[in-house]
């Protein structure tokens, strides 16, 4: 066990934090912050990325049935920003970004009131 470190952290599950704001928390049981543990490898041997996370969230965490308030055309719906460790996901490779242990992923719905 102690010598597996060279095999990379890929062999350990990946704990991350997921947050919802801007009203999206209402779709997730009105909880803003969620701890999620993703598998180190998926069935096809790849590492979990944001695409996988989106599906995971819909299947496991989302309480509301209105899935199109979160996902449209297999991606986050327009008007939602995805932040990877406090940066716009477009700076990090969008849905192909592979999640790392301890990552903080925030989904922000834009507000329009004023």
């Amino acid at each position, binding site marked *: 066990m102690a010598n597996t470190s060279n095999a990379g952290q890929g062999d350990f599950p990946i704990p991350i934090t997921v947050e919802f704001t*801007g*009203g999206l928390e209402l779709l997730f049981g009105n909880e*803003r912050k969620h701890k999620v543990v993703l598998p180190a490898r998926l069935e096809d041997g790849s590492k979990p990325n944001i695409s996988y996370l989106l599906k995971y969230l819909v299947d496991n965490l989302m309480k509301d*049935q209105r899935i199109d308030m979160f996902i449209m055309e297999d991606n986050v719906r327009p008007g939602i920003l995805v932040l990877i460790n*406090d940066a716009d996901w477009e700076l990090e490779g969008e849905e192909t970004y592979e999640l790392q242990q301890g990552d903080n992923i925030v989904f*922000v719905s834009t507000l*329009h*009131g*004023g």
Partner: protein
Amino acid sequence: MGSLDETCASLRAQITATEAQLAGLKRDLANAEQAAQSETAPTVEIQQEDQNGEGRRWPLLPEEYKRYGRQMIVSQVGLKGQLKLRSAKVLLVGAGGLGCPAAQYLAGAGVGTIGLIDGDTVEVSNLHRQVLHRTKNVGKYKVDSAIESLRELNPHPTYIAHRTHLTPEGAPAIFQDYDLILDCTDNPATRYLISDTAVLLGKPLVSASALRTEGQLMVLNNPPRAPSDKTGGPCYRCVFPKPPPADSVVSCADGGIIGPVVGAMGVLQALEAIKVITAPEIDGSSDASTARPRDPPSLHIFSAYSSPLVRTIRLRSRRANCAVCSADATVTLDTIKSGSMDYAFFCGAANLPSLLGPDERISALEYNQRHPIVPSASSQPHTVIDVRDEAQFGICSLENSINIPISNILSSGYSAGLQGTDNGQQAANVPSWLPSEVASPESTNPIYVVCRLGNDSQIVVKKMKELGLDQNGKRFIGDIRGGLRSWKEQVDSSWPEY
């Protein structure tokens, strides 16, 4: 009593009128004093360039040194910044929850020209957060009401009232005369219009929004470089290339808003505006490679019930294929003015559901006749389900109604009732949100669903029928058309409207 009330009302009206007259006289006096001072001293242009010792020695009026002294002695502002503020022309689009506090601080800070554009009039429900408007100004144009307050605060700036909603045809001509734009509006279509126009006219944009307990703030198109110049700041379209689906957009009227939340966002807009206006020129602007944005583009998210209250997110830079600020731009001033860039179409309209047939709906009046509040011998037992959220139910509710918020109903899994559509099998599959006595398969007592306006109630009726709760039509499930708003109109005029 009646005549005493009348006397009080008359006196109040006279006091209001006299106060307005007094304010007008004070304004005239201030203007006259200013005119007298500038007659004995040089004209405005010379005031601004008297470093050479020509004309008057001091660029500001004595009263202005006192008035702005506390901010001028802050090194980031200084006299130089104060003079920039005085020559700045700022347009605020929207004189509501964001625009009021933003305008108040900009006027206080001595911004020389402040334009306000808004076609709305003041409503009582605005007053808890739109801090420039006074109770006596309900019904007045918001821009006039706001400017009245701003003049009392600071008579020096020039105030310009645009008593209209911003339109694509009119936006470029209005924006042209200003240096900086503040987006203080409340809907996506106007936000895209403002951003597009600001980019194409080269104006930086301070954009904010707020809802319930949260707010968002961005400084966009800063620096305001030409479209295709990648060193310019991103625009609203770079961040949100596609508008959100219209039915995901919630207004303050529907979702609610805490006054200080939107107030904080408006104040922060004023702060960002002052930072943009007073920012030192970047030396060597001839060298485009060093002329980088002053701050990396950011989104500030305010959340009243989180800690920290504000978190800041790094945003992307200009989008290489942005429809407005890239080399491939398709939106131009001409497509905006001609209407071929159709903002209403781009953002869509929420389709208010009309999910139910006429036989599945009942008017408030008819409901009240069928089931009067004081039950008669012939009145039938029934269930009223109010699907508003708990806070709204707590403000006012119908006698004997039960509260099941629509969010609870929609968050229950599909599995609950899917197998329950066989006759008589529902009992085992009653959804957890429905009290068992209501769901009982023996009961055919009607179920009425009600909400604030009659939209959510239709969704719930449809959902309940999908779950088989209507026992294949043996049990009436319908909604009260027009919701509690109709109840007030048709049945109970004392019903509180919130």
